[in-house]
């Protein structure tokens, strides 16, 4: 497959960029525009939860380039019910019906509650949302999310804030192999090399926020992540092409079975 034909399709929408980035934790919201331009992402997460100083005339949407898909999250929700209410609030903004379900069942490690996430997904899909659930990489839970109608699954790489990279790599690999909808790695990515490594194993996209926002030069870091995601994806495609184009040669150990007997 040529990389120019490689698009990510979520809920029928085609996006070119496999880097999804957030808009939070920036000291100065004005920099967000430059970062998003550098990152060239098509999907951007936003939140309802936190506001810094009350400035009625400012709206984060002013800093987000036009034509992007907004992905609000349900940050702050602790149960399915809370996530559903937050999602409805988010939709009432009139900026689309995509929602990232984030139901944190544990405030110590900020780990997602898969059970509540599945419940929220079922309910919100029925209400017409495009649901992207943030989850703990568990194949059984992922299958339930697929059955519930999720448009992607978003397994974590490591606990939020730990910057540990792909601690759940093996389990993400299993999801990539078994799940037919896009697998998007979210949380725990600290470095571009983590992002590249995830893309190399066939993950569909990466979602990250903190690693860019808290770096000393967010614009430069956004570029680094953009290139890392592209590099990883290109490597994966090159590898895939290798496997599909060449037939598996006969193993030399059993080659003798195919030799013509004199």
């Amino acid at each position: 497959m040529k990389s120019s034909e490689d698009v990510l399709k979520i809920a029928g929408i085609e996006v070119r960029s496999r880097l999804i980035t957030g808009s939070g934790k920036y000291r100065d919201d004005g920099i967000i525009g430059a970062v998003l331009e550098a990152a060239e992402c098509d999907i951007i997460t936003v939140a309802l939860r936190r506001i810094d100083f009350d400035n009625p005339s400012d709206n984060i949407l002013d800093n987000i380039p036009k034509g992007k898909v907004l992905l609000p999250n349900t940050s702050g929700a602790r149960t399915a019910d809370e996530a559903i209410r937050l999602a409805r609030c988010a939709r009432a903004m009139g900026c689309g019906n995509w929602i990232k379900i984030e139901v944190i069942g544990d405030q110590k490690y900020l780990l997602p509650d898969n059970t509540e996430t599945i419940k929220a997904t079922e309910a919100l899909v029925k209400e017409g949302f495009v649901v992207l659930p943030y989850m703990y990489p568990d194949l059984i839970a992922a299958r339930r999310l697929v059955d519930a109608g999720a448009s992607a699954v978003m397994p974590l790489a490591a606990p939020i804030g730990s910057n540990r990279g792909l601690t759940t790599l093996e389990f993400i690999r299993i999801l990539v192999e078994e799940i037919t909808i896009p697998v998007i790695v979210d949380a725990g990515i600290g470095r571009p090399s983590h992002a590249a490594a995830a893309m190399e194993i066939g993950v569909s996209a990466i979602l990250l926020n903190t690693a860019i926002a808290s770096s000393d030069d967010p614009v430069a870091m956004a570029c680094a992540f953009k290139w890392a995601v592209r590099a990883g994806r290109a490597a994966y495609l090159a590898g895939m092409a290798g496997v599909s184009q060449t037939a598996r040669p006969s193993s030399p150990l059993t080659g003798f079975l195919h030799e013509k007997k004199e």
Partner: protein
Amino acid sequence: MDIIVNGKKLPVEDGLTVGGLLDIQKIVPARVAVEINRSIVSRADFDFVKLAPDDTVEIIRFVGGG
């Protein structure tokens, strides 16, 4: 009449609609959600729903988040 908007007490004209309130606050209706007394007001109703004295209004905007 007095209403509370995003925590702040605001004197407004009787019979002010949600749309009218957004106008006064110079907020673009297309980018916010409005809750009155904890119920979401549908966007289509912004110009029809009238505010009542002591209503608690929350104008919700997206903010930066991951």
